[in-house]
């Protein structure tokens, strides 16, 4: 087994679902939901490299299983509600329409339904020059993708990447060579459709490359209905002095799960600027691994997670400074009502070569109810000596004096609360410079509040 590991020097961790010795004979203890996922793997008709990749991923997935809270990276997010389910593969094709809730980003649109590209629902007529788009399924069908699929996302790195690598059959493959003046924009839409007998799981794999000096704004929105797991992995590479603005809206169905793992590789002088707004899903994990790989590279990982009801939202970032003179900024805000829970785990890893690193991380939470909770775990791992790294965290409630001031001017309690929540989120949202997208996020925030407020019955 260890022979298939790409990092043989690393000890293979023993976790639930691992192969254990019992009475001398090896006995695989594969969890039923893991087994159900493994069964979904179809016979591979593709090239050998792909079959090998899938094999290794399947092996890693079987070995890793669904992490429990004993796994440090998942200590604050309990996956039992997900691991209990036996997911089916989604039915492909069939009638579908674009849900009403899809924001108009004023950009060409790529639509995926249950993870499958749907040209019939997409609108790629006005694709800007220098932006090439194809689906992963067609790339693979034509024998392409070698060296690109899995370039950044190692199946050994975790359960969900392994699962995605084993089963991913579609996604967006985007190559951008458009100059900044072209102001190229693109909208990626994911629609989840539960509603069958068994919940469905889909595993989109996006491969995005921004060439040297090019620039792209990508709006990535996910929504749906019913019970499903959207397990997305995105591999993003930015060439020298490239720029990507990545604005994401996670508005999955309240009965859906989303696990999203983004790998961003940022070359010299390039900038990856991301903002994630999470308003949906029963349980959501947003994991971002950004690596500043060349001097003067920049990464902004900003976002807001809004919780209501019994929802669980997790943001986990790993920011690796692997080159000197790079800067990273992370500001995450959580607003939690009801009995919702949020997790923020942010790790800044500064390699020894990464002198003059400028790293900043801030995590702020606003708890709207006594039963809402946040777990925060900042982590600094610094091996260089000339760096400036800071992190901070605040947790608070709405300020009673501010609320009273607003109410004394005639604003009803709900409106006063909404105003203060909006104010709390305002400086986070300010980071989104694209006005159309900022407005879309503001609308999603307002919709979340309307729902959270109605649920709270206040």
């Amino acid at each position, binding site marked *: 087994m260890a022979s298939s590991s790409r990092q043989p020097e690393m000890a293979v961790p023993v976790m639930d679902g691992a192969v254990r010795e019992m009475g001398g004979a090896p006995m695989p203890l594969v969890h039923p939901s893991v087994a159900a996922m493994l069964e979904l793997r179809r016979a591979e008709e593709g090239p050998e490299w792909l079959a090998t990749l899938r094999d290794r991923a399947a092996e890693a997935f079987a070995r890793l299983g669904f992490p429990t809270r004993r796994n440090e990276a998942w200590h604050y997010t309990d996956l039992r509600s997900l691991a209990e389910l036996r997911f089916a593969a989604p039915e492909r094709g069939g009638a579908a329409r674009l849900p009403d809730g899809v924001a108009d980003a004023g950009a060409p649109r790529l639509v995926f339904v249950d993870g499958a590209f749907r040209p019939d629902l997409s609108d790629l007529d006005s694709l800007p020059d220098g932006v090439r788009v194809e689906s992963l399924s067609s790339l693979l069908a034509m024998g392409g993708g070698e060296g690109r699929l899995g370039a950044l996302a190692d199946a050994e790195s975790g359960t969900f990447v392994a699962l995605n690598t084993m089963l991913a059959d579609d996604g967006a493959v985007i190559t951008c060579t458009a100059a900044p003046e072209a102001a190229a924009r693109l909208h990626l839409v994911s629609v989840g459709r539960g509603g069958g007998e068994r919940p469905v799981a889909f595993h989109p794999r996006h491969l995005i490359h921004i060439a040297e000096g090019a620039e792209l704004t990508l709006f990535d929105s996910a929504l749906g209905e019913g019970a499903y797991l959207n397990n997305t992995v995105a591999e993003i590479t930015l060439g020298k002095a490239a720029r990507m603005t990545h604005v994401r809206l996670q508005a999955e169905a309240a009965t859906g799960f989303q696990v999203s793992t983004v790998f961003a590789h940022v070359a010299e002088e390039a900038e990856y600027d991301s903002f994630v707004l999470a308003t949906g899903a029963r349980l959501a994990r947003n994991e971002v691994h950004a690596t500043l790989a060349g001097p003067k590279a920049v990464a902004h990982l900003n976002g807001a997670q809004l919780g209501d009801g019994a929802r669980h939202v997790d943001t986990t970032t790993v920011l690796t400074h692997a080159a000197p003179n790079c800067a990273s900024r992370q500001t995450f805000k959580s607003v939690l009502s009801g009995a919702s829970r949020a997790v923020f785990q942010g790790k800044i890893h500064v390699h020894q070569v990464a002198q003059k690193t400028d790293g900043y991380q801030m995590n702020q939470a606003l708890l709207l109810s006594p039963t809402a909770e946040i777990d925060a775990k900042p982590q600094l791992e610094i091996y260089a000596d000339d760096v400036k790294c800071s992190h901070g965290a605040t947790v608070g409630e709405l300020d009673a*004096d501010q609320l*009273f*001031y607003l109410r*004394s001017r*005639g*604003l009803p309690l709900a409106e006063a609360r909404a105003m*203060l929540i909006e*104010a709390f989120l305002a*400086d986070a949202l300010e980071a989104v410079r694209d006005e159309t997208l900022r407005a879309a996020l503001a609308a999603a925030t307002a919709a979340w509040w309307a729902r959270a407020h109605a649920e709270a019955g206040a």
Partner: protein
Amino acid sequence: MKAMLKIEGLTAAIDEKTVLKGIDLEVPAGEVHAIMGPNGSGKSTLGYVLAGREGYEVTGGSVQFRGEDLLAMEPEDRAAAGLFLAFQYPVELPGVGNANFLRQAMNALRRKRGEAELDAMQFLKLVRGRMKALGMTEEMLKRFVNVGFSGGEKKRNEILQMAVLEPAFCVLDETDSGLDIDALKIVADGVNALRGPERGMLVITHYQRLLTYIVPDRVHVLLGGRIVRSGGPELALELEEKGYGELQQAA
């Protein structure tokens, strides 16, 4: 004359400490009454109790406002009923734009009264006129509410809100403190412009100074949570000369 605001036997406590020990006070429509008293006598507490601030527990007595039981109402309903408190220490609201705040407050009040909301243009037109009269720059509308405002700017902002919201009854809590004489005159002019036969006012102040510009109909002295003396405007001058010492000894 029928009182617009009628306070009877009002007692109130903060953290179980009794601060108001039985207040009786009537302010008819069209009149301006002043409440004077040394620090700690309970002036702000009275203002907060009227506005409905949490943590200020009414332990006895009643307050009728325009014939209604004021103490039974939520703060926002008191505002809708026409009560306005200009805070001694206006609250800062980072992230809340001043113009947006003021417009939303005005429209909330208009909705409650069944009046049409004002759109951004109508609102701006109204607010610009009021700001000019108060010697305020329009730039203050773009800033976050009271954030980075000087003491004087905060007080003017309170008066601006009052001028825009046009409440039936104004409680001004030490609106004069921290103002230089020019600012004081501007603020007093703003307040006087709102005086009218339908409007009542309760002007809380520590010093007589403000009352030379806003001449009250009645002056009440609040000491140790009780009104110990009431009189005409001349009482303010008397207090200025003699201080509160004599009254404190008598109390």
